[in-house]
């Protein structure tokens, strides 16, 4: 039993942190605010594929590195830290979904292309009904002429104008299942949703889109499982953002002098930062626990994912708000990166479920445990 990262995972995290710091500057994320959406340059995308990152969370049998959800989460965390466009994280989530729940044929068809970087993928779950998750899905796949037909709207689809493949959650009979839909399929339209952090979020409109019945992801729990994995990765992205906001504010507090002392020697500053540090460490513990539970397919995985997302979402917003406050006026300017983390944290905190929604999941788990 070991609750800390092994050497392989530490190495992956360190390499990712260094590489992204070199290849993707916060300046690009800032520029994207004026010319949305924020997209990964093709060269960087190819480099990530070359590193094998898109298969980090997939089994070795599936052509991946076998590092599990925890491996993918470490990459997502670094993406959040670096303010990277979301496509890598979406693709990690999609690849893991197919690896965990896809049948042999679907895996053989899709996973090699996804891991090689030629088929960015993303989940399409949410609908315009004011809530989140597969249980709220209303869109029903209608059977007809040997296939299934999808009509309706999916919103807040991450990296929707980048993805070549959508894994669409839809009702098939009594169940919510996952259906692969190519970006170029007839009847699919992607409309930008313009998020405040300029991430590539779209509304996907489906007008009688045809899916072969045998291409449906075979595992009946695939939609829920994929959503849980994606939620964990969004939490990881938030944790990275929180860490970055904390680090830049700590650095500023060491160097900014007022009243003849570095402001970091004032407890109004240092204790505020200590509180953020505490939350980051608690959040990290929850994230690791959630990822391990997913990797082990444990029964409490859903509750732990909900716990991690709820806690880390609030932590990341708080870390960014602390960064604004403790930088003073300068933290409130366009030129500083503080607002980039505030935007990303705010937006991701309400992506894949907000804290209140996840706490309801936790409450159901408690009722079950204490029954």
């Amino acid at each position, binding site marked *: 039993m070991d609750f800390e990262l092994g050497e392989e995972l530490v190495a992956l995290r360190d390499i990712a942190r260094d590489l992204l710091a070199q290849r993707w500057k916060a300046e690009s994320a800032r520029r994207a605010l004026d010319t949305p959406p924020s997209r990964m340059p093709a060269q960087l995308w190819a480099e990530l594929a070359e590193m094998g990152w898109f298969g980090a969370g997939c089994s070795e049998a599936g052509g991946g590195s076998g590092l599990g959800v925890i491996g993918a989460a470490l990459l997502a965390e670094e993406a959040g830290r670096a303010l990277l466009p979301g496509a890598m994280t979406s693709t990690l989530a999609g690849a893991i979904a197919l690896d965990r729940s896809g049948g042999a044929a679907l895996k053989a068809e899709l996973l090699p292309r996804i891991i090689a970087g030629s088929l960015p993928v993303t989940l399409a779950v949410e609908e315009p009904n004011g809530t989140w998750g597969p249980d709220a899905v209303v869109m029903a796949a209608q059977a007809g002429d040997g296939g299934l037909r999808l009509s309706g709207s999916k919103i807040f689809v991450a990296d929707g104008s980048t993805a070549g493949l959508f894994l669409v959650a839809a009702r098939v009979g009594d169940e919510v299942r996952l259906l692969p839909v190519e970006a170029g399929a007839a009847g699919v339209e992607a409309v930008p949703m*313009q998020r405040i952090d300029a991430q590539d979020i779209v509304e996907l409109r489906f007008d009688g889109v045809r899916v072969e019945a045998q291409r449906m992801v075979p595992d009946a729990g695939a939609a829920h499982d994929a959503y849980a994995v994606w939620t964990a990765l969004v939490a990881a992205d938030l944790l990275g953002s929180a860490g970055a906001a904390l680090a830049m504010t700590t650095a500023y507090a060491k160097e900014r002098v007022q009243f*003849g002392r570095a402001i970091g020697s004032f407890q109004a*500053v240092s204790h505020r930062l200590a509180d953020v540090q505490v939350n980051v460490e608690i959040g990290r513990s929850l994230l690791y626990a959630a990822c391990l539970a997913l990797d082990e397919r444990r029964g409490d995985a859903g509750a732990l994912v909900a716990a991690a997302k709820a806690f880390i979402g609030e932590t990341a917003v708080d870390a960014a708000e602390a960064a604004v406050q403790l930088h*003073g006026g300068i933290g*409130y300017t366009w030129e500083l990166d503080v607002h980039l983390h505030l935007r990303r944290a705010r937006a991701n905190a309400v992506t894949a479920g*907000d804290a209140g929604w996840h706490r309801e999941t936790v409450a159901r788990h408690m009722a079950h445990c204490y029954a």
Partner: protein
Amino acid sequence: MDLKFTAAEEAYRLRCREWIAANAHHAAAVAKAADPVQAARDWQRRLWEAGYVGLAWPKAYGGQDATLTQQVIVSEEMARAKLPPLINTIGLSILGPTLVRHGTEAQRRRFLPRILSGEELWCQGFSEPGAGSDLASLTTRAVLEGDDFVVTGQKLWTSLGPIADWCFLLVRTDPSAPQREGISYLLCRMDTPGISVRPLRNAGGGVHFSEVFFDAVRIPREQLVGELHGGWKIARSTLDHERSGLSGVISLEGSLERLWRQAAAGGEIADAVARQQAAQYWIELEGLRYLGLRALSDQLAGRQPGASASVGKLFAAKLRQKVARAALDNAGPYACLTKKSPHVVGKGRLVAGYFDSLGYSIGGGTSEIMHNVIAERVLGLPRSTGEA
């Protein structure tokens, strides 16, 4: 304690309400004007001419010498009618009271009426890149050469920079004196040669503040306020003025009502968490309102609001942030879209209001400084910053 309105006061309220009704179309025009600055100036002038600007100010300088009750009545009626804010707010809330207390008679007659009418817009030059919370460490220099101060330095966080006609600023006139004893308070035309203004883009993407650069700017000696080297104490009383007042309550009222309407269906908020939260904000807002009324009562009785104004500033900033956060949270992911998005709720106002709210615990003295002020000046605790 006495809360009753007299018949004369009720009549005054009625006249005010009638005037507002008769001028509602002018108020509405401000938001739609092609030249919004000119429209805002026109609106302030119209209000002033009707006797609704500068109620507390002496008649001799264009004010109304109104009673405190009349001030409260006017602010209540304006809030109720959701009139646009006055454009020259920095001049009205900070410089005006300062000149009344510390200006020469000539300065008062020259400047005060034009502040009220909006004829001359004012901006403030206090903060500097190295002097934020530690304002007294400012380094913008002013050297007396003949009858002029020659000013060189840089100011930061100046509102209305590009459109202001005048600036009041703090400069270091005696570098050898202890920090707080070498600072003077000057008034300066913004079209004086040597001044340049660089607008700053803020976190929300908009432009509100500017940097103002002074390069050997000549300011006539008669534009000194108070004593030479005596600017710090004047600025300190100015800051107290800036922090007091009820104006914050009025805009918060609107935010809270919008929060309620956003969450309420059929008049009630069904979700207990959101309902309890909204009620708590109403409680805090009422607390802030009556705190403000107590401070006004103190002023009327000739007592300085002093450090107790910091209480209101601190509490109001926090409340504003809580209300803005709640509005954002209640709208879920839809609130995190730009105003251009087809799916955005509230036309992007929720995010804008949130970003805006974060500035309230920074500008005009950070909440950390407000805590220091309350700890030191109200509770008498020893200084935490170590400064004299």
